[in-house]
């Protein structure tokens, strides 16, 4: 499903080069739930961004279902991102002026589907994320947990095979964090491939996790 080969990522300042990821090799199979674990600055968020195609690697490649996402032209890369990948951001990244439902439908706007079909899919996703009851509410009026559930619904609306979560519980209290883990468990049973970048201890002893990959200084250890 996700194949990473010799992946490196560096950032360049005026005279210096900072290597964030160093020669990463990783295979994630379909339906796997993988936790990327590490302290801040270990490179897990950067790795997640590269898998999602939000950034380009300095060297190496990432294959999503055998397709090299970072090397595809924008039109095709966007299609792959829209159909196959759902992202849940640390800061939720919602459009604050739009309602829950309007936020959820965003990934489907360019899909070519009719509005009725889009609304149908949004309904399913909101039910899964348990946020249907707040669908008309503006994102700016939601609590942290509700924003998180809206972000989950948005990530699920296109029914992607891969769900990428970047520090999903960093802005949630314990109750909401446990609620999120329950949702992840449910998604895991639906055979979704899930990659979570986190340093939250709550994720350490989950019995349904397939792998925990520790990262230190941009390397998998």
């Amino acid at each position: 499903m996700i194949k990473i080969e010799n992946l490196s990522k560096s950032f360049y300042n005026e005279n210096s080069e900072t290597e964030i990821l160093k020669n990463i090799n990783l295979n994630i199979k379909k339906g796997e739930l993988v936790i990327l674990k590490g302290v801040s600055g270990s490179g897990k968020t950067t790795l997640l961004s590269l898998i999602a195609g939000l950034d380009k690697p300095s060297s190496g490649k990432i294959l999503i279902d055998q397709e090299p996402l970072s090397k595809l032209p924008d039109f095709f890369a966007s299609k792959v991102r829209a159909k196959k990948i759902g992202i849940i951001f640390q800061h939720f990244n919602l459009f604050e002026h739009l309602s829950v439902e309007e936020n959820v439908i965003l990934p489907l706007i360019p899909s070519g589907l009719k509005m009725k079909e889009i609304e149908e899919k949004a309904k399913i996703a909101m039910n899964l994320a348990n946020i249907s009851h707040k669908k008309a509410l503006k994102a700016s009026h939601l609590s942290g947990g509700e924003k998180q559930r809206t972000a989950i619904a948005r990530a699920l609306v296109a029914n992607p095979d891969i769900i990428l979560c970047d520090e999903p519980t960093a802005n949630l209290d314990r109750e909401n964090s446990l609620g999120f883990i329950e949702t992840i468990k449910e998604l895991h049973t639906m055979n979704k491939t899930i990659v979570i970048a986190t340093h939250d201890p709550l994720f350490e002893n989950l019995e349904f996790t397939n792998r925990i990959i520790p990262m230190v200084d941009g390397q998998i250890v």
Partner: protein
Amino acid sequence: MNSNAFWHFMTLQLFKEKSKHISVVLLSITILFLLSSILFISSSIRFSLMQTLEQQPDFVINKLQGGRAIATPLDWSDELYDIYGVSKITPRVYGRYFFKEKEKSFLIIGVDFMEEQSHKSLEKVINSTDIKAFLEKNQMMVGEGVKRYLKENYYENSYKFLTPKGEFKSVSIFKTLAKQTDLIANDMIIMPIDLARQILGYSQDEVSDITFNVPNPDEWTLMSDKLQALHYDLRVVNKNEVKKSYENLYNYKGGVFLILFLIVLITFSLILYQRYSMVYSSEKRQIGLLRALGWSINDVLKLKFTETTILIMISYTIGISLAYLFVFVFNAPLLKELFLGGENLKNQLEFIPMVDFSILTSIFLLYALPFIASVIIPVWKIAVTDPKEAML
């Protein structure tokens, strides 16, 4: 991209972020309103002038001395009768009469009502006037401006003119001249030619100038040369030359306003560019997020282009409509004074509704292209960067 879903989202964006767009729309409306008003006024004035000039005689001749016009001998008109192709020869007596107290002046035109008139609108005025009643005593027909001005100075029905001999000549107002010729007739007084001679100090064998028509326009150049050969001190002006001088005057005023408009437009484009460039971080974050959610660069550009086009259409329609109402319904208060300013008597000219579609298209292009460019270029610059960078 499915149009239903796309339009649904775009309408949402426009309405839910209306506070973000309202300042741009208001600024656009103001700029469009000003530009359209200027162009509407300018084209309406040009139309009025052309209409008025249509009524004018084809040629005017007068005598020059030291480069300035002086009284023209009446017998020059006899020489014109000998030239083939000349018709409607009309000797005219006219001149400015100064109203000392207020430093204003009227244009007195003396007319020989027994002669054929080369000036078409004068012919119309005469045809619609009871000449017998008019000539019974010293009477005049006055332009709107004169009528108003005299009324303001308590001369309701008549005015006493001071002749160069120091005598007062009381002249009654017979009627007011029609409004559509206001641009030129505003400060005009029409009176019998002999009365005008007395007030302006011309002798019986002198006139101000002589007008006539040459129905074949192909002959005009040749006619000018022929007339010039008659007397060394004769000046000849044809209708086309008058037309050009009027056009130059109003084109010059319109040109000054257009330059001012272009300066405003450039400033406006810079503001927009600034607004949509990197300075505007929430816009940047939104674009980055849409890209992260699977929108392609084209999808983002299409959204912003359509959004901008709708804002342009709204501003354009409102701006043009307001300008139309301002100029043709409310008669362009303030702006009219700027255009027609420096006039002798306050002009009550009413602009004739005149919409030139080439002007509307020019306004649209002048406004829409910089607007679209100043929005789309920064949006494109953000859209082509990696979504992660744009979302930072």
